[in-house]
Every structure is written in C-alpha cells, then in structure tokens.
C-alpha cells in the first residue's frame, strides 16, 4: 500500500515540471482574482511547519494578487477545528486554508465525520517524511539493531513525537506493524508536538522519537541525536547519509505528512483553478526554493487532480494502518 502512495507522490512531483503545460489547457477559465482580503485558515499553531509554509505562501499570494491574505491559526481538537473552519466556509474563494494529512486520519479515529471529500483540494505544497531518531548516547546504531531489540523485548522501549494517534505515532506503529511486529512493541509516550518530544529525547526521557526529519535536522547536524532512518524512498538532500526505510526495511514502509492549500467543499472550478495556477507559479520561484532549502525540504507541487488522487490513496493507506494498530473507532 505504501508503495502505491509513494508512487502517486512521485508522479505528483514530476507533475510540477509538466504543470506549466497542463495549466494552459484550462487557462481560459482561470482568470478569477480576489478583490478583497482573503482569510487563510491554518489548523495548527504559530511557529510550526504548517504555519511557516502557509504564511510564506500567503505572503507570496498577497504580492501576486495585491489583496491581503490574512492568516488565522484556528487550533483545537487535534486539527478538527481548523479543518472544519475551512470546510464550512463560504466557497467564494475568500477563505482557503492549510488542509494537512490529518484530514485522512481524523475520521478514522472517530474525531469527526469530515473527510477529504468535504474540502476542495487546490495544491500540495509540502511533503514531510517521518524519521527514526535516537539520542547520541543510544546503544542503537542502525534501525535494524533497534527493531531487533524491540522484537526481543516488547514494551521496553519508549518513543514520542506527537499525541496518541497523531501522524508520527502512526509512523512508528505502522512501521512496527508492517514489519510483522506488535504495534505496541515500542510504547508510545504522547507529547504536545515535536519540540517537547525532542526535548524528552535529549533529556533521556524516551528512547526514540519519530517526528519529521526536518524537525530534527538541527539536532542531528549538531550531533545531539542520531537519525537511524528517514521514512521515505529517497534521501533528504540536507542529510544524505540517513538511510531510507524503503531500502533498509523489508516491508519498504514509508510515511510522510503533507501540507496543502485547499478550499471549502464546492469551490467553483474557476476559482480553484486560478489558485492552482498561482500556487504553481509561486512554487517555481527562486524565493520559494530558497525558503524550502532553509527548512531542509524539497520543493514539491501537485495540482488539483493529482492531489485528489493522492488524498484518496493516503486515506485508504492510513485507514488500514489505523485499523491495524487498533486505534480505529
């Protein structure tokens, strides 16, 4: 299943190059522009990765269209509040938002009935693969060591990264499950996000953390922590020596969170197409590339069609994982 996911992903990335050609096809209906302030809803807090990407995009859309793009952080309910705010807004193009991977997990764990069908995907702007991190004094040198130890001593090791059932928890439990182990062979210790989890890791409070590798990059480069694996199928440009799970794991397990710009359900074609085109242009700019590089991330883009397909695939895959590890409602 994960193979399929990454396949779709790769196609999407490749699509970025072709997008200029494809947008020309429906260019005649894409001339919508906003003539007053637009609200940009971010379901997560200020200072996080979703916030940073969305604010950057909002600022560049603002420069492009000459109307204010006001970012509002609607946090709460592990993402439900903000996603509902996007989904329930008037589909007039004056409310868009950062729909994230949680749109494919929340409904499985019973937080909400809302799915990706209740929003209008516009474009994918970031792919954030998970990682496996340990402290610099950890006895584990490779992911293999770690997995072998966890297999032999289930329940001894602890890991953290986000709340219970959050995306980084799924990354760990899903990996264990895919490798034929008990998803609780490594116990999950919930935290209020990646930063407190990293603090726990360097303080020796937990043995493992599985947040986005981009979150741990500074600590890895500093030698405070070791990255045993990158849950992706190609190495991170900033940390090329970190092994990728698609190669070192038999199951080829990979998992990445993603960030999109999306609108409310029923957003007219003309409007979402205009946004898609604008975002596509922005992601090809030098400014955007520089911003991405500073965060150790690659420039990615998927248009509406690819993104919709991607979300459907993600939804099935993550649903299977959630059911396999016993968190489904």
């Amino acid at each position, binding site marked *: 299943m994960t193979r399929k996911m990454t396949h779709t992903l790769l196609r999407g990335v490749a699509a970025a190059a072709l997008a200029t050609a494809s947008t020309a096809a429906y260019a005649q209906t894409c001339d919508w522009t906003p003539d007053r302030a637009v609200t940009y809803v971010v379901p997560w*807090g*200020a*200072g*996080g990765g979703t*916030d*940073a990407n969305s*604010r950057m995009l909002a*600022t560049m859309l603002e420069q492009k269209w000459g109307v204010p793009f006001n*970012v*509002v*952080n*609607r*946090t*709460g*309910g*592990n993402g*439900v*509040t903000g996603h*509902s705010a996007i989904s329930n807004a008037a589909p007039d193009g004056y409310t868009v938002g950062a729909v994230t991977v949680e749109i494919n997990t929340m409904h499985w764990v019973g937080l*909400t009935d809302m799915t990706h069908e209740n929003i209008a995907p516009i474009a994918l702007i970031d792919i954030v693969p998970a990682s496996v991190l340990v402290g610099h004094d950890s006895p584990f040198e490779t992911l293999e060591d770690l997995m072998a130890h966890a297999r032999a001593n289930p329940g001894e090791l*602890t890991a953290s990264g986000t*709340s*219970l*059932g959050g995306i980084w928890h799924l990354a760990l439990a899903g990996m264990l499950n895919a490798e034929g182990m008990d998803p609780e062979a490594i*116990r999950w*210790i*919930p*935290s*209020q996000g990646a*930063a*407190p989890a*990293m*603090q*726990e890791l*360097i*303080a*020796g*409070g*937990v043995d493992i953390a599985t947040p986005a590798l981009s979150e741990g*990059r*500074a*600590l890895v*480069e*500093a*030698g*405070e922590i070791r990255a045993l694996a990158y849950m992706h199928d190609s190495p991170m440009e900033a940390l090329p020596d970190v092994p990728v799970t698609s190669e070192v794991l038999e199951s080829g397990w990979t998992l990445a969170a993603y960030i999109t710009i999306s609108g409310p359900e029923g957003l007219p074609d003309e409007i979402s197409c205009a946004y898609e085109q604008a975002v596509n242009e922005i992601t090809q700019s030098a*400014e955007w590339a*520089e*911003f991405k590089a*500073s*965060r150790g991330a690659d420039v990615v883009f998927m248009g509406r069609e690819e993104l919709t397909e991607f979300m459907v695939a993600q939804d099935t895959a993550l649903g299977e994982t959630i059911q396999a590890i016993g968190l489904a409602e």
Partner: protein
Amino acid sequence: MDMFAILATVLSPKILGTIFLCTLYGSFVGAMPGLTATMAVALLVPFTWFMDPVQAAAAIVATTTTAIFAGDISGAILKIPGTPASAAYVEDSYRLSQSGKSRSTLFAALFASVCGGVIGVLILALATPLLANLSRSFSSDEVFWLATLGLSCAVLVGGPSVPRNFASLLIGLAIATIGIDVAVGHPRFTFGNLELYDGVSFIPAMIGMFALSELLRNAALGHQTKLVKLTVEPLGEALATATRRFGQLWKNVLRSASGGTVIGALPGAGADVAAWIAYAVSRRFSRNPEAYGKGHLEGIVDGGAANNAAVAGAWTPALVFGIPGDSVTAIAIGVLMMKGLTPGPDIFNSDATLVYTIFGAFLMANILMLFAGGLVVTLATQVLRVPRAILMPLILLLAMIGGFAITGSTLAIWIILALGLLASAMLWAKIPLAPAILGIVLGRIVEDNFMVSMMKARGDLTQFFARDTAAVLGALTLIIWALLLYRALRSFLDATTPHK
C-alpha cells in the same frame, strides 16, 4: 572574535534604527489587548526577508521584549494583562494606577523590565552552555516538579484565608482540565464543543477574570462613581518617584532577573512561571508581605524583572538545541535558519561573531526599550483621564475584540463571559482571583508531565526520583509543600480556635 566589528555592527544606524522602530511596534502591540508578541512577530517575518541576519534577529527580539513589557501597561490601565506573566502582579499595578500612581508604577516596571532584560542577555552571553546543560537534563519528571513548585506560589499570592486560597487555586486547576487529555486523548468537560478541545486559552480567561469582572463591578456600582476623576502624575514627578523607588529595590531586581533567566531557559516553564515565582519569593522575603495584592510596587518590580529576563533565557534551548520553547522562538528559529544560521551546540564556535553580534543587538533592544516604553507609558496613561462613560465601554469592546483576535472564534467571547461571571461570584465569596489564574496557567503543565512520566514509568511513582535533577527538585518541592501545608494548617487551626 572581533569586539570592534561587533560593536560597529550593533551601533550602526541600520541596526539601531531597526531596533528603535521595532520597540515602538512592540510597545504598541503589547499594550493593545488581544494583540500578542506571537502575532507581532509573525507579521514581521515577511519584512525580515529583506534584512541581514543580525537585523532580522534584532527586529524579532526588540519586538518581543517590548511587547512583553507593554503587557504590563494594559494590565495597569485596563486590568487586561497582556500575557499570563503580567497577570501575577496585575492586581497591584491596577490598584496603584487607580490611585493616581499609574506613571510612577509603570516607569518603575519599565526600569525593572529593562534591567531584567539586560541581566538576562548578559547571563545568556556568558553562561549559555551552562544553562543549556541544565536545560538538557529536563524531561517530563523535572518539568512536573518545577511546575508543582510553581503551584505552591498560590499560598503566597492569595489572600489571608487559607481555604479560600486553595479553593481559588483548585478552581483554576479545574478550568485547566477542560479539553483533550494528554494521556489517551479523551475530551473532558467540553460539552461536545470542538473548539474547547484545546482547553481554555489564557488570554480570554484573563480578560474575563480580571477585566470583565472589573467592568461588571463598575456597572453594578451604578452612577455613584461617575464623578470620581482619576489623576495622573506629572511626568517629571512620576520619573523622580519611579527612580527613587526603583533605586531602593535594586536587590530585588538582581535576584528576580537571575532567577528569571534560569527559569526561562528551562523547558516547559518560561516567562509565566518565572514571574509568578519571582512575585511569590518577593512577598516571602518582603518587609511588607501584607501589602501585596493591594497595590504594592515591590512585587511588580520583581515580577517585571523576572519575566523580561525569562524572555532572554528562553533563547537558550532555541539557540543551542534548535528546540523552540514557545511560538515566538519557533518563528525566530525559522527566520534565522532562512538566514543560514543553524542553531546547535556548535553555534558559539561556528558562528561566534554572528551570535555575539545578535547578543549585542539583544542588549541594545533592551536599552532602547527604555525610550519606546517610556513614550508609550506617557501616552497610554493619558487614557486614565478619559471620562468613565467613554473609557468603560471602550474597555468592554476592546476586551471582547481582543479575546476574539486570539482564537478567531466567538468561543473566546463566551469564555470571557463565563469567567467574568465566575470571577464576580468569587469576589462576592471573598475568594482571591490570582491563585485561580496560576492554576489555569500551570494546571496543564503539571498534569501533562505527570501523566507522561507515569506512562514512561508504567505507573511506578518512585521513578519521579530516579533521575538526579528530578530527585533534587522533587525533594525540594516536597519539603516546601510540607512546610506550607503545615503552616497553613496551623494558621487555619489557630484562626478557628475560639479566643480564650
């Protein structure tokens, strides 16, 4: 590293100009209810693209420090503390300004903030590796003990009645349990409202408890206070008084600023805890502990120094580990990384000149804050001269808009109303408000870290003492709690035993 190069950069017109503009911006934002340092910094980010690294860092730091100080201004004038850190002493500063001493109080608070900030930056420049080592040893066990220690301040920030102080603290803690619990993600007391899943946010809670309850009280007094005119001291006199009073309290400033820096550097604590602890310690060692909470300057100076020092301290984990302690430092790290500066333990070797230049800019930001802060204090206190019939409706509207601005949702206004009514009931019941705010601020930290530790230890309580730092902190906390409980119980029994 080249001292002169650093000085030349820091004192260049470009950097000084940036800092000055940002201190003005920060004081404006901080003094406006509902506008926070985080919002101010987030709006600044697009401008930092056109700046060099030092200028960008200077802009962020200058904005943050002044915004945190300016939270005291709205606290004193409108009874709307800008941050939970200012809430520790808002009762004192509000009463002082109601009695016509707004300017001397705020000037003294400004001096304290400036000194706190300067001391914080100096400690940061000299001892970051040490602070980083301390911060490195903090897991959920240590944070739990530190927060529990912070809770003990409730006894020292409340009123004379022991059971009422405890009732207040517990009401605050009860409010803090609203929302998704950390251990299993179960929504508690949310009545099906998704927005309550994140818990009651601090700013609307404080606006309700302090500002709305004050407005309600004023309304209930009817028109009898209509003719009471508030006075504002002349500028020169206020400055003289503030300087004189501040001069007597320099020891407090040293104590609170150094303590504040350390607490600020620790994960999970930050400026809020620093201010409350500084205020409580100040009262414990003061010659007039009974005057606290009734309009006493000493606690304001201690709390103000500590919270600005903590703002500097909070940069330690951010710079050394790249782990942001709060949203402001998270945004700041993002900006620094865009400028090619990667936080990490090597930052003092690899980018020494740049780092010390940034520290130099921090220092200048804290010094220039004196002017911007002074200007805003002078202007903002004029507000007190405005007739009640204009001022009160304005505060009401500002309080509601401010709450709305924080979350972008009308739920904030309902929280303001609910907590305003609760606070009115508490005032009627003679239950003090300050311990409740402390409970709201610390409740989540205490519970989350307790639960996380218990899950790590699989329910084994002895694990709370298994780590060195945790054992020391734990023993200290238990001793202090035992003493406080013993004294509280004794004074309660003394008071309830009939006189012979």
